[in-house]
């Protein structure tokens, strides 16, 4: 049975990869199959892993009558199918938007804003890095000493680039240009990591084809 499913997976992989040559019916079949299966799977798992254990079962067993509130809010969402009554679905939507907006503000403030600002308040040169260089002089430990200055200088330059009340000329212009350069380095690193991810996906599929399917390795 395993061999059968390996063949199915291999053929579907080849059907998807065939798009690299050009769009074709095999690709379309695999694509539609994937969309249908994914939608069905998500629906089933939401029903059996979320709806029943967290809402329906405790409600029917009379363990928590307050669950009737999310149940009714959930039912109200279905009024979106009716042009006349779709306004009712705005209530549960408003509830969800309110909850998630509140969570987002707290999460961002606590996790990102405060902690990242805190992490940026550092000495221009780390004493630990200097000690590390003194103990083991080398290229890596020397670069380690540059870590804090690069963070502090880079942060100032990039913030200056986004400071639009000041014309980017003269000294401010110089720092803003350095900030732009540093942003480009960041985008380059982001692109490099994206290539790494995409390459890994390709390798994984090829490895599946040559090991599990063709048994070449």
């Amino acid at each position, binding site marked *: 049975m395993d061999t059968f499913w390996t063949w199915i997976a291999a053929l579907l992989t080849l059907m998807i990869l065939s798009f*690299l*040559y050009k769009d074709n019916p095999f690709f379309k079949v695999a694509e539609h199959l994937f969309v249908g299966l*994914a939608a069905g*799977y*998500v629906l089933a*798992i*939401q029903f*059996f*892993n*979320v709806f029943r*254990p*967290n809402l329906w*079962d*405790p409600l029917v067993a009379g363990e928590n009558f307050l669950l009737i509130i999310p149940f009714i809010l959930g039912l109200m969402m279905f009024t979106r199918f009716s042009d006349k009554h779709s306004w009712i679905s705005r209530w549960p939507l408003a509830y969800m938007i309110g*909850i*998630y907006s509140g*969570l*987002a503000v*707290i*999460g*961002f403030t*606590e*996790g*990102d804003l405060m*902690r*990242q600002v*805190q*992490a940026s308040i550092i000495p221009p040169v780390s004493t630990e890095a200097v000690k590390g260089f003194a103990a083991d002089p080398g290229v890596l430990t020397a670069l380690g000493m540059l870590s804090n200055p690069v*963070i502090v200088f880079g942060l100032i330059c990039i913030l200056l680039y986004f400071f639009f009340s000041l014309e980017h000329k003269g000294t401010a212009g110089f720092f803003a240009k350095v900030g732009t350069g540093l942003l480009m380095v*960041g985008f380059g*690193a*982001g692109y490099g*990591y*994206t*290539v*790494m*991810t995409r*390459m*890994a*996906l*390709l*390798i*994984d*599929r*090829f*490895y599946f084809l*040559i090991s599990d399917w063709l048994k*070449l*390795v």
Partner: protein
Amino acid sequence: MKPETIQTLKKLERLDKRWVFLLVALAVLIPLIVPVKAPMTVSQATKDYYEQIEKLPAGSLVLLSCDYDPGSKAELYPMTVATLRHLFRKDLRVVILSLWPAGPPMVELALNELKAEPGFKKRYGYHYVNLGFKEGREAVMVDMGRSIHDVFPVDFHGANVNTLSLMGEVQNYASFRLFVNLSVGYPGTKEYVQYAQSRFRITMIAGAGAVSVPEYSAYLQSGQLSGMLMGIAGCAEYEQLLEEPGLALTFMNAQTAGHLLIIVLIIAGNVIYFMIRKKGDK
């Protein structure tokens, strides 16, 4: 420059992209079929990830959230296998969950791979539990700070969590010595840092798909993450530290060859572009 050279350069500039696809395919396939052991250095982030698990006393509880799906299997699945192998080797007890619908089957796949290995003696419900998927994203993260039992009344197989011995010792984040998050997007490490690590002050390490690494690196620098596996390269380093070669180490040569080809193509593309433009200016 000779006119023939310019013509050749222009032809190269308009090269059918399918030739590039073929080159990439060959660059990736050849090292997979003919593997060569290349040297590798281990980054500090990977060492920290390893150390955070290594220093835990046997029997400690660890929470592992696997937030990915088969689309990211290439990077995150080897991390799941390597991390679970490390946790079990250290006799740690693991509670596993996922905030991605297709995450739990990936966890089952990894557990089945480990179960098939000789000498595997861990028991479900006592040494490890797979709680499965739960909808709610950030709301789930925050609610687990109050009660994990309320959020996950049943496990992935539908069993009441109160019947599982391990879950008797679990209440909320405070029950765990370490939180490990393997993720590649939303909801994942960023949200866990914002809603769980910052609020409940838990020690957290992460394994991330390479595409998410630039975003998560800020959390590593600020100390909110105590260690990180950065893409498939980070996982290969981790497998090397564990001395347990897995998929990531197998993939590394192909990854290196693929990257080298991309670098050559980027440089060649730019050189051709500037040479043609320079000629056009004249």
